[in-house]
């Protein structure tokens, strides 16, 4: 009988914990060679999900079975631990040779960039607390439940007398000329909706440690220590926080996120490392979350282009660099 928890989620145990598996369909095998053979067979059929996973995560150049097996083993290697693996992959995807265009735009943010941030991020934050609620529902660990409740308070309700990030976000939008009613009545762009569907699906179907890793790894985006791990830039140009070029509400929002997320991501990843019984499942789910996050960051920039069409030049510069 296949072991499952009370929600029907597969619970690996015994030897299964250490079995290599296909990162797309979870086909399990005794060794990476068989997983490579499985992936090759799927690619020969042009199976979209398998081909895309390889293109986005490993290489777009076809490899032979042996080389693919070695690459997979290396890719999923946890020699520095799970938390560091997540950190390094995040840097590669969003802060590497070609940083994400939204992050590039945030180095010299304009009104359009910040309004794109406001209009899409309100939907992200409203979904954020709902997905974290799934962690609380599923976990049997009190330290995790308390951690998530505090995080939800900071983001959505306010904590220790400070306004929630959600409110600071809306105030930033108001300071840039939109009314609260205009902000709240703007629906998400399709890419934001698609990303939210991905995170909700993870929340519904995956183990709570995977959900926790999928969400809190995204808070690395504002982690100032990423420069130590190869990030080329910070989330935004730090001098913004001390300059008068933006309204106070903009500085307040950016400062809050910047100061909170480093602590949030670091503490959550420590818990993920401590409680993960199936690290590869966590790795695979985190990568899905990164794909959704990339799409969502692009939606912020595209919303910004509705205010300032010239923002498309940022993308052009990133692609050509």
């Amino acid at each position, binding site marked *: 009988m296949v072991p499952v928890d009370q929600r029907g989620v597969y619970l690996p145990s015994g030897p299964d914990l250490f079995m290599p598996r296909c990162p797309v369909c979870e086909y399990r095998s005794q060794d990476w060679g068989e997983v490579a053979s499985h992936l090759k067979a799927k*690619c*020969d*059929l*042009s*199976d*979209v999900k398998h*081909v*895309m996973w*390889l*293109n*986005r995560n490993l290489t*777009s*150049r*076809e490899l032979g079975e042996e080389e693919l097996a070695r690459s997979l083993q290396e890719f999923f290697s946890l020699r520095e631990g799970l938390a560091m693996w997540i950190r390094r992959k995040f840097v590669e*995807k969003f802060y590497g040779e*070609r940083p*994400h*265009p939204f992050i590039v735009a945030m180095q010299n943010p304009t009104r359009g960039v910040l309004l794109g941030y406001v209009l899409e991020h309100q939907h992200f934050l409203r979904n954020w607390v709902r997905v974290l609620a799934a962690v609380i529902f599923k976990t049997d660990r009190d330290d995790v439940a308390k951690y998530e409740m505090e995080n939800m308070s900071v983001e959505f309700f306010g904590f220790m007398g400070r306004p929630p990030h959600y409110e600071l976000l809306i105030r930033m939008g108001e300071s840039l000329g939109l009314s609260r009613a205009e902000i709240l009545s703007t629906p998400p762009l*399709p*890419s934001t909706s*698609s990303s939210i569907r991905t995170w909700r699906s993870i929340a519904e179907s995956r183990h709570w440690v995977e959900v926790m890793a999928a969400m809190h790894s995204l808070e690395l985006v504002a982690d100032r220590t990423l420069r130590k791990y190869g990030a080329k830039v910070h989330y935004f140009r730090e001098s913004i926080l001390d300059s008068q070029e933006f309204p106070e509400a903009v500085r307040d929002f950016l400062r809050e996120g910047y100061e909170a997320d480093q602590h949030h991501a670091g503490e959550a990843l420590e818990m993920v490392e401590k409680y993960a019984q199936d690290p590869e499942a966590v790795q695979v789910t985190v990568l899905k979350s990164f*794909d959704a996050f*990339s799409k969502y960051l*692009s939606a912020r920039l*595209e919303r910004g*282009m509705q205010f300032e*069409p010239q923002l*498309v*030049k940022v*993308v*052009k510069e*990133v*692609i*050509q660099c």
Partner: protein
Amino acid sequence: MRVRVEGREVGTKESGCALCGSTWGDYHEEVERHRLFFCCDVCAREFRNMVQEVKSRTGWGRVEELEIRGNYYTGRTCVARSGDREVKFYVRFGEEGEVESFRVL
């Protein structure tokens, strides 16, 4: 039809997918009377939709040449040519391979 991805000529299994340059997969489709290689049917759909979008915006009868740069993460900037005419644009695709964002540069 001549297609380049990141400066490299593509469109066959050996050279790479006509949209993303990948050499995984084994999918072929005829676009603009040329049999092109794609790594999967989503890339083929995206490519077809992109060519159709260019034709409907420009009024061209056919696209003879495409230069594509970028990827899923960044979106793509492209140059399409037909005879001595050309158009530069940015494109991003939705979940089903539809054109979600198209901006002339």
